[in-house]
């Protein structure tokens, strides 16, 4: 009994939070699931029943494999466990197969792989300095950060209702960030390289990693005024980083290079035929652009400036994934979006190079890269906002200014995810969870910084 007492007392609040959210995830098992559920079932089937040479060619189902090879291996590993739940789900021809055991297996696989995310959050909490805050547990930055990450609304509804595997992928990203904070640069680089080969969407933040590692790791020292000291360049470090990236990529793409399938793999990974905007518009710049185009074309039609016969019938709002031409404003090409994105991330990259501020500066640059790519990228999903929200949580418990930006970002970002769940039974869930997360984040951050300013004032007056 004393052992149980010790286990449930003391520093076990983290376990309680992690267990609590895991139980909530279990309660979400019978909720609505999107086509992503079938996507992943299909990938289990493909990787289990077909040889590697067929993985990126298989097209029985419309949901073809379009993630990098490590994810395919991950599905392969899962499929071996899936065998014991329901053999039928591993048949490529069983389209839309969703027996109760399949559902249970898939949902539990997401919940189980979230363990990596929990571990990453634990590591991130170690990077937070919480000595200045109050004595009360619920007012400590570590506690607040743990809740903001573990109970993140976006992650909960995207992973455990809509169905995806962002939990452990975000865990990998947060872990690599934590390693960079802990000055374990090689591990951080390795983890990010692995992450890239799990889901290539993380290319959005690759520039931040590249520039930071080059500037703050390969150049081992700075001049007193903070600018670059060219003669401190360490070839060894550069080579070792390059080696890590090379080896990881070789492990991932090697087999497909040997099979001469690289072009096919890349065409699957980067399907530029898909169109500027995703089926449901991600709230980015191009959505505004398309809306403006639509408004102008309607005005043009009304004012008889445009010829109705020349306007294409299909609409960008119809929910279809296809290429589209704008009517009034110039059409946007993938190259144009790339240029816009590069322009947008340039200021933060410059700052990271010329005025490095350590891991915190890197984190800011990472968030800005994620946001810029979200705003100007080609075929962005609204779920990509999570790439910016989760790292921002780390900054939010540090400074009051960051906290207010975080609150705006997270509230609007989470609200923009609402269209993902459009069924009636899930309506109360998304509203309740959104309210819960928003109310908690606002009140806890407000209290934290009220306390911090109080303590700082106390120190000032005591001198």
């Amino acid at each position, binding site marked *: 009994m004393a052992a149980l*007492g010790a286990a449930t*007392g003391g520093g076990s609040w983290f376990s*309680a939070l992690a267990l609590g959210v895991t139980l909530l995830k279990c309660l979400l098992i019978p909720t609505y699931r999107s086509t992503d559920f079938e996507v992943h079932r299909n990938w289990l089937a493909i990787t289990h029943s077909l040889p590697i040479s067929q993985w990126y060619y298989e097209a029985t189902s419309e949901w073809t494999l379009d993630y990098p090879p490590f994810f395919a291996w991950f599905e392969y590993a899962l499929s071996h466990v899936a065998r014991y739940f329901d053999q039928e789900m591993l048949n490529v021809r069983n389209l839309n197969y969703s027996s109760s055991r399949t559902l249970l297996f898939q949902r539990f696989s997401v919940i189980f792989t979230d363990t990596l995310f929990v571990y990453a959050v634990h590591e991130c909490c170690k990077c937070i300095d919480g000595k200045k805050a109050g004595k009360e547990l*619920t007012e400590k930055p570590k506690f607040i950060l743990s809740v903001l990450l573990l109970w993140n609304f976006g992650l909960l509804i995207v992973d455990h209702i809509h169905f995806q595997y962002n939990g452990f992928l975000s865990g990998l990203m947060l872990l690599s960030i934590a390693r960079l904070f802990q000055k374990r640069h090689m591990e951080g680089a390795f983890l990010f390289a692995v992450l890239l080969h799990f889901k290539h969407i993380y290319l959005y933040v690759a520039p931040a990693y590249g520039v930071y590692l080059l500037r703050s790791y390969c150049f081992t020292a700075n001049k007193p005024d903070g600018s670059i000291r060219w003669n401190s360049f360490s070839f060894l470090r550069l080579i070792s980083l390059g080696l890590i990236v090379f080896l990881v990529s070789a492990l991932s793409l090697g087999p497909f290079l040997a099979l001469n399938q690289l072009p096919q793999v890349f065409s699957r990974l980067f399907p530029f035929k898909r169109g500027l905007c995703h089926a449901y518009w991600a709230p980015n710049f191009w959505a505004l652009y398309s809306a403006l185009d639509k408004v102008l074309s309607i005005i043009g039609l009304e004012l008889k400036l445009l010829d109705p016969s020349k306007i294409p019938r299909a609409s960008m709002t119809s929910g279809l994934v296809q290429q589209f031409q704008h009517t009034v404003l110039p059409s946007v090409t993938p190259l144009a979006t790339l240029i816009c994105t590069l322009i947008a991330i340039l200021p933060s990259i410059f700052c990271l190079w010329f005025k490095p501020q350590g891991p915190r500066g890197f984190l800011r640059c990472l968030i800005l890269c994620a946001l810029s790519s979200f705003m100007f990228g080609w075929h962005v999903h609204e779920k990509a906002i999570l790439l910016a929200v989760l790292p921002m949580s780390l900054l939010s418990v540090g400074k009051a200014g960051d906290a207010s930006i975080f609150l705006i970002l997270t509230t609007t970002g989470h609200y923009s995810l609402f269209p993902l769940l459009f069924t009636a039974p899930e309506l109360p*869930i998304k509203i*309740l969870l959104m309210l819960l997360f928003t109310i908690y984040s606002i*009140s806890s951050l407000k209290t934290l910084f009220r306390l911090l300013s109080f303590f700082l004032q106390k120190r000032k007056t005591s001198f």
Partner: protein
Amino acid sequence: MEKCYLMTAVVLLGLTVRWTVSLNSYSGAGKPPMFGDYEAQRHWQEITINLPIKQWYFNGSDNNLQYWGLDYPPLTAYHSLLCAYVAKFINPDWIALHTSRGYESQAHKLFMRATVLIADLLIYIPAVVLYCSCLKEISTKKKIANALCILLYPGLILIDYGHFQYNSVSLGFALWGVLGVSYDWDLLGSLAFCLAINYKQMELYHSLPFFCFLLGKCFKKGLKGKGLVLLIKLACTVVASFILCWLPFFTEREQTLQVLRRLFPVDRGLFEDKVANIWCTFSVFLKIRDILPHHIQIMISFCFTFLSLLPACIKLTLHPSPKGFKFTLVSCALSFFLFSFQVHEKSILLVSLPVCLVLREIPFMSTWFLLVSTFSMLPLLLKDELLMPSVVTVMAFFIACATSFSIFEKTSEEDLQLKSFSISVRKYFPCFTFLPRIIQHLFLISVITMVLLTLMAVTLDPPQKLPDLFSVLVCFVSCLNFLFFLVYFNIIIMWDSKNGRNQKKIN
């Protein structure tokens, strides 16, 4: 201000858990011809909106009492009527006379679940929040943790949002009653409790403690002055509220009698189905239901019930206190549950509510009791295919209590409120120091047994000769636990005054 936000967060979490549980199956889903409690509630909406009041409780061509006839007091009927008006507005097919029997659809399920949530949100949850906010001598954090634990109690969530019932309405009214009476708003408290009784007659389990407590208060104020005034006012409130609720049924004697016959089916027998009370457990060894004549069964049950609750009630009348009141609620309800006739397994919720209220005073024992109470309903939950939500909510509740109250560190004599009892026993047996350790061991045995039985019930098939083996085992184990708790709570009540008296002597 901060307390406001955290309490809101706790309420939102409670609501989320409730709604996610409601996504699962309900009682009698897809099981014609009788279906289950869900269909019963839908049927009552059909009856109340389509038939005149005079026919609600009577057998007729339009109202077949054999098919889920109304057997709750008028307030349930009025509530069903209200829901039926909303249903009519949305989709009249849901409550069309005769043709809507066994109606099942996703939209209808959403509607029914929403009615439960709204009733809960309006009555039960505010009562819990107010109760926890008004607790004295504890920090804000503990108040909020208390609210979290009460709102996460699995039994009520699983029955109301899984099986499908409206217990939160009657329990909510009863809680308002407790609040009113504990904080000297006696008239409002008794009004609320009358509403509770008029919603579900099982609330009569709580009526004796209310009566004794209020009577005790009147005595204390002096029967010659203020006490008598209070007594008269209370009597008037009770009578007025009953008349108000039963008004349409007081017009004819036959109406009133028929309603009473539906509420108290004395013809039915000592118990039905498997329930964790004494009679069902005893009948495993000796079939008293078949041996003894009907009126003897009722007499025996009456005697046992009243003998077991008399000491606590007398004590409450002589020394009325809010703390004693809460504990007496527990022991009375438990006595009724164990010894009364025609008890359903869901009636354990009537005991669970008062136990939730004493969670702060004896966190360890309360958590233990609430776990057993949920376990005792296992056969019902398995029948409704609610295994996953049951396991998850029980674990969530356990974690919430364990972290909020550090229950495993509070197992000393003092924490278990057994200090005065132990001191008294030690006068005769000086070596009686091992009580906490015994209780800890009993807890471990109890939990292990419950886990094992759950695993067995889920994975194994019962032998052909004993198809109800697991249900009976569950009832047996739960009954033993409940008997232990009956003794425990009575000890706390009886020895509490001695402690108080000794304190007074010392002072």
